[in-house]
């Protein structure tokens, strides 16, 4: 269990020389792990502490209770960001689940060129959100992209100007995010479909179930643990989304596509409101915990059940 050798003598001096001899080993094991763990714990605690101080341009000590939190939550910026997060999070997660599932089912039909197709659906994941956001900002720009193309082709009344439409702009982020990461859902679903017991499928077919019925009643129900994993991973992305919005809309038009991560950045580095910025970051963490804690509990129960079965 422990790393101390059984043969080490118990007398004082040789034991110390043993420790010295094994110093490189201890250092190699502990220094990276301690650095990682210490930065996670101390950085989190420090940010939480700052969120309760009156810090603005520089960190200062002092105690203002929840004043930073109430100020952030009362601000129009945060309210819009939070509403956007609810809309963006649910639309993006739901639509990328559906897209990923459809793609996985299509690829599961023993089609030719499956490997090539799978690579096509997955390649956006290798590209940065900055690149994705920039490219989609061109495609969705009404004077430059799809709308302009359709106009040039002769259909001049065609309108697709969500990027500059306050009410619809958030959907451009949904589109780009789905393009970027529905392949992830597909990959996980496809692995799930491939691991369904062939005997169950055969039994369903013998019972006279058609392909759609077999999928709906027999195969898809086995996928729900994967579905939960996909939902949690995608929500985690949605909650901390920053690069994509920065490159695609930069929060605009106006502040119509503001998201929590942009509010944090704005408060910390553009308005020099460190206390409020830290409070907004902690609020992001809390939103994340609302998603992650039930997931962790569910995983724990699953694992217990698996070991007891």
């Amino acid at each position: 269990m422990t790393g101390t050798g059984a043969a080490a003598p118990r007398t004082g001096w040789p034991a110390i020389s043993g420790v010295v001899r094994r110093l490189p080993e201890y250092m190699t094991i502990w220094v990276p792990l301690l650095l990682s763990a210490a930065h996670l714990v101390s950085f989190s605690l420090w940010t939480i502490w700052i969120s309760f101080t009156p810090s603005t341009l520089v960190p200062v000590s002092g105690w203002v209770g929840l004043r930073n939190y109430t100020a952030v939550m009362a601000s129009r910026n945060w309210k819009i960001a939070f509403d956007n997060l609810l809309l963006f999070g649910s639309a993006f997660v739901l639509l990328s689940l559906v897209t990923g599932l459809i793609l996985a089912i299509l690829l599961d039909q023993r089609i030719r060129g499956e490997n090539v197709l799978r690579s096509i659906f997955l390649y956006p994941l290798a590209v940065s959100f900055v690149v994705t956001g920039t490219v989609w900002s061109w495609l969705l720009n009404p004077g430059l992209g799809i709308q302009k193309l359709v106009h040039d082709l002769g259909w001049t009344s065609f309108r697709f100007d969500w990027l500059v439409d306050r009410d619809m702009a958030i959907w451009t982020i949904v589109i780009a995010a789905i393009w970027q990461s529905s392949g992830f859902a597909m990959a996980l679903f496809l692995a799930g479909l491939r691991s369904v017991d062939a005997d169950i499928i055969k039994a369903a077919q013998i019972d006279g179930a058609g392909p759609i019925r077999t999928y709906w009643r027999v195969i898809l129900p086995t996928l729900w643990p994967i579905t939960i994993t996909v939902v949690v991973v995608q929500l985690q992305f949605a909650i901390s989304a920053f690069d994509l919005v920065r490159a695609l809309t930069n929060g605009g038009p106006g502040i119509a596509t503001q998201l929590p991560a942009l509010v944090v950045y704005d408060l910390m580095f553009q308005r020099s409101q460190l206390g409020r910025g830290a409070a907004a970051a902690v609020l992001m963490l809390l939103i994340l915990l609302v998603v992650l804690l039930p997931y962790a509990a569910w995983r724990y129960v699953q694992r217990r059940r698996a070991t007891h079965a």
Partner: protein
Amino acid sequence: MRDRTFAPSRILIYLLVSLIAAAYLAPLAVVMLNSLRTNQEIAQASMIGWPKQWAWSNYLAAWSGFCVAETCAGIRPYMLNSALVTIPATIFSTMLGAIAGYAVSLWRFRGDNWIYGIVTLGLFLPQQMRLLPWTIVLRDIGLINTLTGLVLIHTIQGLSFTTLFCRNYYIAIPHELIRAARIDGAGFFRIFWRIILPLSAPILIVTVIWQFTHIWNEFLYGVTFTTGQQQPVTAALIALSAAIADIPQHGVQSAAVIIAALPTLLIYLLGGRYFVRGLTAGAVK
């Protein structure tokens, strides 16, 4: 449901799959074509179109010509910055993660579960919780606005992923192997070097690809902790589109986007299988 006859339903499936594949490829195709059209041609028509004359000079301008923030050296210095951050940080985090993963899974020591549990919390903790502390730490050790500072950040933060990847891989190695080697007198490093490392090629490839892709594509730390000539390419792309918003040069910008995306796309094409394995390994935490 899984027969190979060419029923109408199968034609429909192929049609549907091809359509969706085209939609996924379209943005890349549009940018590639644009990177070969002149700025005037794009300005007259739209971003979507076939080049009338092949403007290869866009790539030269993107690589070493256009100006960002009063420096006219193209995207080259920022690509170099990204490489100088990504390559060392990938190597360091992978090496340290492999050793740490081996230590917590096979060597075992007092407190290993605890420290491993805390380290993996790093997979979930939002970057925003660490922005201010990193600012202060980097300033105190004199690494603010340096590439070394970014290497440090990505190495330490990458440990959460690399340790998890390697630990989950090593846990399947039989403990008897380690026990036998220890009875023969092999120590921590010898076992790692002679037994663990030769078995590690698949997981090291997965880890390197994962780390490289993530660090290369990272934006928030790059834009927060570096400015001007020190920025990685993701931050430079944003600065570029802001800098030439007045006089659009979409041909050159498209070429810059392609160049910036090329390293990770190439790695994806070469190591796609390992890339996907990393994705699923990262998901099933």
